């Protein structure tokens, strides 16, 4: 089966062509600067040379048209006929409370995704544009939506409600939703497979640490808590986002600095986090380069790992124990210092890091705890696209079986 996975952003479209049965990636690629001058398509067919095309790409439909034509091209293509695409899987950021799993896209589903625009004003509209474009260009191919929020819909009410007047939840959907769902779900099931135990017998804490970061408590296969909330601003410290803080702080800053709500949103999302504290960079690698010499870089790093450590402790308490801690995402997969500092002092929970294994330069799935550690510590490169492709495949198979 061949699945086209599409992740449409405001001015970009990322894509992968995947055979989910074989877990094989046929091609990956990216269209950038859609609707701007100098749009670029970068296409990487597996095992062959990368191709770059530039031209005028006015909208998502034209972008996906370009993608299809390069997928079909004689020299750089990976399929011979559009009909080889069995289904399209779309990443959709916000599914609200309407979706607790991936779904076949119908008009009704589209309407519900539209209804969630208020929750994700920057993400859901381009996601919808991607879906519309793919529907027009591949009208007979089933389209599936995979939501970032869906996996966390299993959180109990006491974990997802804020301590606000209850009517605000009912009236405006103000609650915690959580994000990175596909990533947390992927690394959790991968971890269970790696240690050879069924997922529904394990208590896992998964840490997706990238430009945006979140931790999740996954008890017996279900997300019971996660650090991001109504928006991806809550929780851990991130590259340019502040994470947890006293909400009164923002009201105080708005008054003192004469900020509008828009101004404040930009400050909290784009000028805070590692960048705001260090004044140096939002990139963890650059922060670590100056860890020993620059006080502000060090304190930014320390806040990052301290907060992560608190979440690990909190989630162990929330689940009544922990069997596995997983690190994923750019920082989780690559920063030995973050892993080391975040787990420092957690031996009382049964977490013992093997320093050598933690330091070893490696790619791929690996276990980095000591042999005596009660808790397994794993590094697992995430693969959200594979989750989207697999979900899409299952839904299409089910649909065909029911016909």
């Amino acid at each position, binding site marked *: 089966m061949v699945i086209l996975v599409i992740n449409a952003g405001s001015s970009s479209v990322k894509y992968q062509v995947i055979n989910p049965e074989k877990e094989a990636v046929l091609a990956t690629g990216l269209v950038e600067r859609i*609707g701007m*001058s100098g749009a670029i398509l970068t296409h990487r067919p597996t095992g062959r040379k990368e191709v770059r095309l530039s*031209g005028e790409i*006015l909208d998502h439909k034209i972008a996906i048209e370009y993608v299809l034509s390069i997928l079909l091209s004689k020299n750089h293509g990976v399929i011979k006929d559009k009909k080889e695409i069995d289904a399209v899987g779309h990443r959709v950021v916000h599914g609200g409370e309407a979706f607790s799993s991936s779904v076949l896209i119908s008009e009704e589903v589209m309407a519900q995704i539209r209804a969630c625009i208020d929750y994700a004003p920057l993400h859901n509209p381009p996601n919808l544009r991607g879906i519309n474009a793919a529907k027009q260009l591949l009208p007979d191919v089933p389209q599936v939506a995979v939501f970032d929020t869906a996996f966390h819909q299993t959180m109990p009410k006491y974990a997802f409600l804020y301590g606000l007047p209850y009517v605000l939840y009912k009236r405006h959907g103000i609650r915690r939703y959580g994000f990175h769902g596909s990533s947390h779900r992927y690394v959790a099931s991968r971890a269970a497979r790696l240690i050879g135990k069924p997922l529904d017998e394990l208590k896992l804490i998964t840490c997706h640490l990238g430009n945006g970061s979140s931790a999740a408590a996954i008890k017996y296969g279900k997300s019971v808590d996660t650090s991001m909330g109504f928006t991806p601003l809550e929780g851990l410290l991130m590259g340019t986002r502040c994470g947890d803080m006293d909400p009164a702080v923002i009201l105080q800053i708005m008054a003192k600095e004469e900020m*509008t709500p*828009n*101004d404040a949103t*930009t400050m909290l999302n784009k000028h805070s986090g590692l960048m705001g504290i260090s004044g140096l960079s939002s990139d963890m690698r650059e922060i670590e380069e100056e860890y020993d010499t620059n006080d502000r870089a060090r304190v930014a790093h320390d806040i990052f790992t301290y907060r992560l450590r608190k979440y690990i402790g909190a989630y162990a308490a929330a689940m009544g124990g922990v069997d596995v801690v997983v690190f994923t995402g750019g920082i989780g997969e690559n920063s030995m210092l973050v892993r080391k500092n975040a787990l420092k002092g957690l031996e009382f929970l049964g977490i013992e890091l093997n320093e050598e294994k933690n330091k070893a330069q490696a790619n791929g799935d690996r276990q980095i705890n000591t042999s005596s550690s009660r808790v397994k510590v794993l590094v697992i490169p995430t693969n959200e696209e594979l989750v989207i492709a697999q979900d899409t495949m299952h839904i299409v198979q089910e649909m065909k079986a029911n016909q």
Partner: protein
Amino acid sequence: MADKDNKTLDINILGQPDLGGGDKVDAIKIVTIFGAGTMGQGISQLVASKGMEVLIIERDKQQAKHGYAQLEKNIDEEIARWTMTESEKRAILSRIKVSTNTEDAVHGDLVIEAISEKLEAKQELLARIDTICEPDTIFITNTSALSITEIASATRRQDKVIGMHFLNPVPKIPLVEIVRGLKTSDATYRFIKEFAETLDKTAVEVFEYPGYITTRVIVPMINEAIHILMEGVATAEHIDIAMKLGYNFPKGPLALADQIGLDELMAWMENLFRELGEAKYRPCPLLRKMVRAGHLGRKTGKGFFEYK
């Protein structure tokens, strides 16, 4: 008529990096903006931030350079107060080009004029570009008090001339008054209303009358505040505190006057007074005195309050 070419904008007096291919927000790809003063800068930044390309035309090359530098400075100030990012700045600046040649107006899918607030100058410019631009190009005039009908009368496309009254600072004020001249067509109005939406501005529709809504309401109020000050009823601080706390104004009337510029404010009042002939629009003598003394508000460091 000069040749129109949307694909290549080879106008580059500031030696900026090449723009590459075309751009678009729906049908409007390139917006020509006349004038690199405060309003021209603000409108250019706003339009470019929404993904359209901007061609600023300013006759005087020094003025053009200064305007562009000021625009850059305005964005830097926003970055310093954490409300914009470096990458937004790069994107915006990459979309703005500057020319000194009026003929270049032809490249715009829309023309916005933001030159000085003088009827003759505006008429002269519109008459000139009327012969340069394609006959279906809409002309927007940015004025806070002048008659759209009168400005439009200089052209042969009076149905396609419309007013957009942006308020300073343009990128931040969420409002625009769309002002219809006597002969402005419904189609032009609808098109510009949609344009305002793509700029994320809330538009209010105004049928031409001196002062529209905002200027006509704010002017007598500020003037009254100046009278109160002149008559020794209260200090400038207390007048502003009273209005801020008593009626929930984010800024007091005198601080607002300083921000607008006292010379500008007086010009508005004189225009309203001339047009409508009512005493309530007559500039307060204290305002005249301050303008004559060169205390024009924020921009000169001294107005009703002092600014360092």
